């Protein structure tokens, strides 16, 4: 793909960035060099904190200085025959390039669009700023572009607000906004990470197509190797601020040279579950029995607004069983009701109808007081380890709380138990007095898991426990979960949108779509032969490492 005859749009040499704080400084980017040519996609791959975003943002003047200090480097940007060093341009020049010749697409389309302004207003902004277009001209152009990125009814959509769009649509808007000034360089920072797998496939296709049609240079930043595999021409692998390996995409995926690249590739969950963990006991009665469960939301009930729009049926007539020592996967896209189902099972949300029986005991009719002893037996792990830990409680407080509350320990003898829990989930004892924000995402999830297993429960509902984590961390946490399930004889409902992860961990899988269970079966059976059309689409959209 990459013919070196192509002119290089951006050429970065020996870029080093350091972050200085009162506690010392850290080398965020260390002597990084790369280039990207017109019509080419360069993927920068690395885990969070590897410096891949900082590298790109520093070129655009988007990192705060201080604390960031650019120590060295040259970034030659070629546009209309003019060569500029981005790192040495003044703010004015940089600003005139940004949004015009260089455009950026950010990771989370939910937060990156201004919720208070219409799509149209935000779309025309770069045109008005850089091209001196009249409001009407800009509007025309914006509408054309909205259509081009595949949004129907562009004229009406022009006046809509971001919240009226789904995540995928927003990302299309972001792409339109980036392309509206016909840039020569497009930087896409994890553009599909926050999207469902089917949407992700569409967006990747769109990006690829637009790049080809407009012959622009694309820098694609991602942590997800499977995604990169499907779009990149060349790949640069970053770790701890350094590019450890760079090369043609096919070569990197087929014959990774650097051990870190190898480790990354090995961490991508693929293939069936390692056999050793399966100890399901089919003959006895199930641990959890769910019958005709229904959960309905009165929207807008929260807060002082009592007026309620039409109710949403989040979980619709769901029945299934969960056996002892079984890991049951629950897959579905966002909005399918899988999280609500998980919460309804352990009575965090009161179901509207149906029954949930834990070991033969009906849960839905119990009041909080009656539930309390049962809470010890069922626990939950949440998706977002940032939000699910109280920011003002130390690791000790968080882990000790369930022990003390259920009188499994006293104030005097709780410490050894907490330390044992920390051993279980692989946390250093020295961290006992630290607060959640001092940990990385993976460590936080370890804390959350520790909290969940503290009371030695039988059932754990894990709601997307690894989807916020980097791929190597994800692999570690998955292995941790598997080992804990074995060690403590746990049963688990494992909720995820990531089919590879589910395949890797679950014994049996349920597929959920629009509030209903549409398919279930033993994992490998289902993989081999999905019967429902939806399930088939879902499987087809999963990016594969080898797909390139």
């Amino acid at each position, binding site marked *: 793909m990459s013919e070196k005859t192509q002119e290089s749009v951006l050429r970065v040499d020996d870029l080093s960035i350091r972050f200085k704080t009162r506690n010392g400084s850290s080398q965020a980017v260390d002597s990084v060099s790369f280039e990207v040519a017109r019509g080419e996609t360069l993927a920068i791959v690395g885990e969070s904190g590897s410096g891949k975003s900082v590298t790109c943002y520093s070129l655009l003047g988007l990192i705060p200085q201080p604390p960031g200090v650019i120590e060295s480097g040259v970034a030659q940007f070629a546009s209309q025959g003019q060569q500029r060093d981005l790192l040495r341009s003044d703010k004015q020049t940089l600003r005139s390039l940004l949004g015009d010749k260089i455009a950026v697409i950010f990771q989370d389309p939910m937060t990156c669009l201004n919720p208070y302004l219409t799509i149209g207003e935000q779309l025309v902004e770069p045109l008005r700023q850089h091209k001196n277009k009249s409001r009407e001209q800009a509007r025309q152009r914006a509408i054309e572009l909205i259509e081009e990125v595949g949004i129907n009814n562009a004229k009406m959509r022009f006046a809509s607000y971001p919240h009226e769009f789904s995540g995928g649509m927003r990302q299309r808007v972001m792409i339109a906004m980036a392309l509206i000034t016909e840039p020569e360089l497009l930087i896409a920072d994890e553009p599909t990470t926050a999207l469902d797998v089917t949407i992700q496939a569409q967006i990747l296709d769109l990006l690829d197509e637009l790049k080809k049609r407009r012959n622009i240079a694309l820098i694609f930043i991602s942590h997800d190797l499977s995604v990169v595999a499907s779009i990149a021409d060349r790949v640069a692998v970053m770790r701890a601020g350094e590019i450890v390996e760079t090369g043609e995409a096919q070569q990197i995926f087929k014959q990774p040279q650097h051990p870190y690249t190898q480790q990354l590739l090995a961490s991508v969950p693929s293939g069936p579950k390692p056999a050793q963990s399966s100890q399901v006991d089919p003959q006895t009665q199930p641990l959890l029995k769910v019958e005709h469960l229904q959960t309905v939301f009165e929207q807008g009930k929260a807060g002082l607004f009592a007026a309620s729009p039409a109710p949403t049926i989040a979980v619709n007539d769901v029945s299934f069983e969960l056996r002892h020592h079984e890991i049951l996967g629950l897959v579905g896209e966002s909005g399918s009701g899988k999280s609500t189902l998980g919460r309804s099972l352990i009575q965090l949300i009161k179901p509207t109808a149906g029954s949930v029986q834990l070991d033969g005991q009906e849960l839905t009719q119990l009041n909080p007081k009656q539930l309390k002893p049962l809470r010890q037996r069922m*626990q939950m792990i949440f998706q977002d380890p940032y939000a699910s830990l109280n920011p*003002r409680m130390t690791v000790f407080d968080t882990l000790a709380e369930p022990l003390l509350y259920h009188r499994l320990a006293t104030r005097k003898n709780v410490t050894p138990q907490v330390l044992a829990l920390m051993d279980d989930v692989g*946390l250093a004892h020295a961290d006992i007095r630290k607060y959640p924000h001092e940990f*990385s995402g993976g*460590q936080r999830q370890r804390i959350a898991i520790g909290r969940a297993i503290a009371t030695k429960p039988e059932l754990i509902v894990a709601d997307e426990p690894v989807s916020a984590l980097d791929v190597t961390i994800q692999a570690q946490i998955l292995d941790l979960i598997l080992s804990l399930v074995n060690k403590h004889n746990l049963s688990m409902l494992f909720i995820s949108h990531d089919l590879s992860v589910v395949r890797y961990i679950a014994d049996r899988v349920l597929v959920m779509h629009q509030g209903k269970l549409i398919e279930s079966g033993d994992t490998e059976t289902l993989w081999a032969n999905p019967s429902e059309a939806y399930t088939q689409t879902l499987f087809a959209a999963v990016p594969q490492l080898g797909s390139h």
Partner: protein
Amino acid sequence: MSSLDQNNSPEINSTKPNHINPSKSSAFEEKGSSLWRDAWHRLQKNKMALLGLVVMVTMCIVALLTPWITVYGYEEQNLVLGASPPSAAHWLGTDTLGRDLLTRILYGSRISLAVGFIATAVALLIGVIYGTVAGYMGGRVDAAMMRLVDILYALPFMIFIILLMVIFGRNIFLLFLAIGAVEWLTMARIVRGQVQSLRQQEFVEAAVSIGLGPWAIIRRHLIPNTLGPVIVYTTLTIPNVMLLESFLSFLGLGIQPPQSSWGLLISYGVETMEEYPWLLIFPGLALSLTLFALNFLGDGLRDALDPRAAKD
């Protein structure tokens, strides 16, 4: 800029659990609420906040020691002298009855600081509990509780004060109650708003899934996380309360002359600010100093109590 993770991830390096010698672990024995102890450590690093704290503590100590360090009595008049500007005998001058202003400011600090802290504490206690319960319960309980706040807001304050005065007579503790009873309303609203948004957070859900009861959740998870805005509002409330005290004292509820408070000294000083400006300036400075000290202390405390704020 959350995605700009500035630190290199320690993740790679800590893939294996660190097994630390168990004997060392006893160093992490838990004693009391670590949030407050950690906050204290963080506060010590904030110079402005520390300065504010030092000023406040000094003021409190001086207020306590006032009877032993003043040369004049606070009620001691010198009608022949009358109002006199600062001099060697009277460092801050004297008021129209010839009373030493420094002495009166010092005695006044006893009243003002006591009113400021106790009345605000009353407001804080009621407001935080009320607001948290309303915000946590939500729905009808919340609506009913907030309507009650509306009602109390709307009742005529003056009538309330006059009645209090008549029913209970003059009483300094009544003053604390009266002021606290008024000030808690806004506090309750602020806290309720905070709790409403906190309630949606996953860590509260996690607490529910552990089986914690409402009270434990409110106490352990909600209230500590509302502290930021509460502290800021509190630091703004204290000087307000001190001024409210002077108004109520003027009406006859609260302290009686010849006792003084900063608020009263200021309101008397206003009357003669052209003739005897020192009578306004010095009490005014005392109040301003308190306000700024409290403000810096409050901001520092807010940051100290928020582990995330300590970015450095």
